[in-house]
């Protein structure tokens, strides 16, 4: 009797979770369905729960118009990941394994840096970049996008490297390894999983960035996919089909991460914000 009731209760939980997931997933489902609809269907005033007269026209439009932008976004995302790793791995190591007087000040600054709103940085960076010729450049955009990822990356790596046994570093020193050799041959190989977390986060933030792309790039030259979507929204009429197909393209990395690297996301999120 008891067993039966608890089994029913479990399925009730499944039902509740399924209901919640409908709300979570439906917007994503709707944009995918919409991306296969023709312009006529999209402006017919009816939402179809399943694709109505499915077409690939929107994707054709987007592949033609946005392929270069997808490449731009990839470059920016990869550049942001690289920047985050280059800055954060040595810094995370120094902040966890060296007793430096600057540690408390620096870690506090990193916590506060995470709070600074991007629009505050964007306004100034636009003018500063204007002055040193970084407007409309990959480098400028990557430096700006790094503001999402770098403080977080350092904190995650610091939290992770605390767990690296000091004995390993002592042993290396006894064997005559230089500081740099210890870092390169011990720290980097052992920090691999945290480095993946950081790189995935940084890539997603560079890929998904909109505010810096909108402010620091002013229309000429490079344009990431997020800006491409915004352009489709238009001032007077929205090309809904193209908007949604481009939106689906922009969601692809998130989908890949969800399937391939999800555990890194969950672990990184908790490490970076609670324990870090």
């Amino acid at each position, binding site marked *: 009797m008891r067993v039966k009731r608890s089994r029913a209760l479990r399925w009730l*939980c499944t039902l509740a*979770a399924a209901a919640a997931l409908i709300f979570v997933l439906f917007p994503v489902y709707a944009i995918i369905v919409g991306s296969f609809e023709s312009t006529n269907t999209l402006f017919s005033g009816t939402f179809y729960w399943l694709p109505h007269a499915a077409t690939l026209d929107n994707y054709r439009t987007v592949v033609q118009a946005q392929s270069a932008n997808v490449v731009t976004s990839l470059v920016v995302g990869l550049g942001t990941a690289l920047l985050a790793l280059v800055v954060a791995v*040595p810094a995370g190591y120094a902040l966890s394994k060296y007793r430096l007087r600057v540690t408390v000040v620096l870690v506090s600054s990193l916590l*506060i840096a995470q709070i600074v709103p991007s*629009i505050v940085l964007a306004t100034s960076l636009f003018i500063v970049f204007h002055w040193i010729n970084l407007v409309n450049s990959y480098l400028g955009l990557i430096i700006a996008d*790094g503001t999402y990822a770098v403080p977080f990356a350092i904190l995650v790596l610091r939290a992770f490297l605390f767990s690296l046994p000091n004995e390993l570093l002592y042993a290396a020193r006894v064997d005559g390894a230089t500081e740099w050799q210890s870092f390169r041959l011990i720290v980097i190989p052992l920090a691999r999983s945290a480095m993946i977390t950081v790189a995935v986060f940084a890539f997603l933030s560079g890929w998904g960035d909109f505010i810096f792309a909108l402010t620091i790039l002013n229309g000429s030259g490079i344009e990431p996919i997020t800006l491409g979507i915004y352009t489709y929204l238009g001032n007077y009429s929205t090309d809904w089909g193209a908007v949604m197909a481009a939106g689906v393209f922009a969601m692809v990395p998130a989908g890949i991460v969800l399937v391939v690297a999800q555990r890194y996301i969950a672990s990184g999120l908790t490490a970076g914000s609670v324990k870090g």
Partner: protein
Amino acid sequence: MTLSRLTSRRKHELAGWLFLAPAIAYLLFAFALPIVYNLMLSFEQTSPATISSLTAPFAGLGNYRFILNDPTSRKAIANTFWFTVGSLAGQFLIGFALALLFSLRFPGRTLGRSLVIIPWLLPLIVTGVMFRFLFQLEGGAVNQVLTSSGIVHHGADWLDDPNLAFWTILVANIWLGVPFFTLLLYSALQDVPTEIKEAAIIDGASPWQRLRLVIVPIILPVIEVTLLLGFVFTVKVFDLVIGLTGGGPANATQLITTWSYNLSFQQFSFGEGAALNNVLLVLALVCSPIYLFLSRDSLRRSSGVNP
């Protein structure tokens, strides 16, 4: 012997500083410089012509006076306040409920838990566009469900009615933030020792009592940090609103961030934009002492290997 020890310690410290050098350089260039420059800008009389000259004539408190008297800026500040309060309340309640649900054992919980983080992974501008599609007056799924189920006769103009648009961006932002709350609170719930939960059951505590008197007090530090980070995210929201409503209609969804963008990049009043930025920065930083306090253990922590 002493001498060589000393030099090796000095070498060690130097190495530490060298490892930190890229981070310090980056923080100075990408955070400290813009914040200081933004402060300077806010006291300058800028015009489109001054953008290329890095400095402009001194304006005293003129830009701040403008912000305080500008109805749109005031509206944006008020909207940001209510948007933050509403978002945090919704995100916390739903996120906590889901975290509790997923910490029970039931078929499909692992799959459910991994799917629930999807909203949090998507580019924010895409989320904005998605909700714009759902909340359209005609052909939007929301209105279609409401009219076909007979709840209302005519679809509501969720995006262009000044009385409704604010609720639309609020719903979208809650949707966006729930995964973050769910994930953090779920992992906190996993850390509650089983013995304590079992002891409470043996003592005859009802589920509600167990939650209120046992579980919440234990995970309170995580709840605090999560709310704090949620606050920080919400104060910064920009892309979502630009994608959904662009701050309209009639500034009903204008936030500090979107109005600051408008001032600086559409009206080219960088001084006024910078002044509004500083209002936002102060609002966001108000909570930084609390954040540092909550992170105090981590701040002090050190496992150094000094020679």
